[in-house]
């Protein structure tokens, strides 16, 4: 009896394999785990699901994230972040900083001073706060290393800024803080800078 069952299994297995080969490697029948891949799962249902409609943020959705890169392996900078598992902590820090633009300048200076030794490594490329700062574009440096101390990104400004154009650069003023636009992570962001030089 057992012997007969084993033969049946073997014959069926061989028949299936032959069928696969005859179809040029095409995966097996409908349903189940064709080709060894499960086809079911939550997303396969395509249902809108439960009634827990998210409240979320009104407007102002974030546009940036790992999938926006569309790279096969993920950007190296992103992979580091995933491994560090610090995305939420960074977001909290960003949110805190964006709440109080005027206070931020003082906080930022304190933060920078804690890293006093590191911040003067390459002053030409620093860009913000009380760094040795190139306040116009005469050095023609197109790329700025954000430095050891990561300046807080501002995807939007939380005020209706006054603008001043100096040396071809538009400066945005929120209270006592001044900003210019930069590319950061492929998007336009505002970064804090020294006030523009008065000529």
């Amino acid at each position, binding site marked *: 009896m057992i*012997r007969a069952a084993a033969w049946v299994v*073997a014959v069926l297995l061989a028949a299936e*394999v032959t069928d696969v080969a005859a179809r040029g490697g095409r995966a097996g029948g409908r349903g189940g785990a064709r080709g060894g891949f499960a086809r079911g799962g939550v997303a396969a249902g395509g249902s809108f699901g439960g009634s827990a409609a998210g409240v979320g943020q009104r407007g102002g959705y974030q546009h940036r994230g790992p999938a926006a890169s569309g790279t096969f392996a993920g950007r190296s900078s992103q992979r580091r972040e995933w491994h560090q598992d610090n995305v939420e902590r960074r977001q909290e820090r960003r949110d805190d900083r964006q709440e109080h633009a005027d206070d931020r300048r003082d906080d930022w200076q304190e933060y920078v001073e804690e890293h006093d030794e590191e911040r003067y490594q390459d002053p030409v490329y620093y860009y913000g706060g009380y760094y040795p700062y190139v306040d116009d574009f005469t050095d023609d440096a197109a790329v700025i290393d954000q430095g050891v101390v990561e300046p807080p990104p501002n995807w939007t400004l939380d005020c209706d800024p006054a603008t001043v154009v100096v040396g071809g650069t538009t400066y945005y003023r929120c209270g006592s803080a001044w900003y210019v636009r930069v590319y950061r*992570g492929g*998007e336009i962001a505002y970064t804090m800078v020294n006030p523009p030089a008065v000529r």
Partner: protein
Amino acid sequence: MTGRTRIAVVIGTCLAASAALAEGERAADRLQAMATFLAAAPRLAVTIDAAYDVLQSSGQKIEFGERRTVTLRRPDRVRVDVTRRDGSRRGVVYDGTQLVAFDSDENVYTTVEKPGGVDAALDYFVETLDMRLPLRELLVADLPQRLKAFGPARLVGEEQLDGVATDHIASRGEATDVELWIPRDGGPLPKRIVITYRLAPGQPQFAADLAGWNLSPEAPDSLFTFTPAPGMERIRVMTPQGKAN
């Protein structure tokens, strides 16, 4: 279990393993055929309709999307024009010595010197400058080597996409899962690519439908020359720590 029974089971198992191996080889062959074909093309153009998830701080996943028109002229010219679903327009131009990223709605652009050809320039653009250029891997000449190093490929099955018979191929890298749909007939030019960022919070996906493949597009020098519009402001690129050089 008798000797004959064991033999039967072993034969069956071997045949199944052999078929799985054949499918794996076929998947790898299809991927390499695609990579070799793309890498050897002197010029190409394609339109990419892409969508990607962004995990919000609330935990909600939101999809955004854009259309990219890509023109490549090897060895040293590339242009990508992007229109997002919200209508905003931006792009990237490389003329062999200078990379330009521009944003027509913000009315800004940036220029970075990077001689050395498309491969080096695009890698620099993404990995060093931390800028966005989805699916740039399809444009580089060492795509076959990159895919070989990525991870083993498997054939999910034969599937119809817009009436075209395709091989659905899946591969798994260290941090991402990549799926490609490659037509079974004609040039092995991918019709669809899905990338899952497996290690990222929320496991967001990037999905792209590729259409309008053209291997002999019009690609005059003027297409790769960027002239800023009047009033356009030049801004800088801020890179992650230690990447500026």
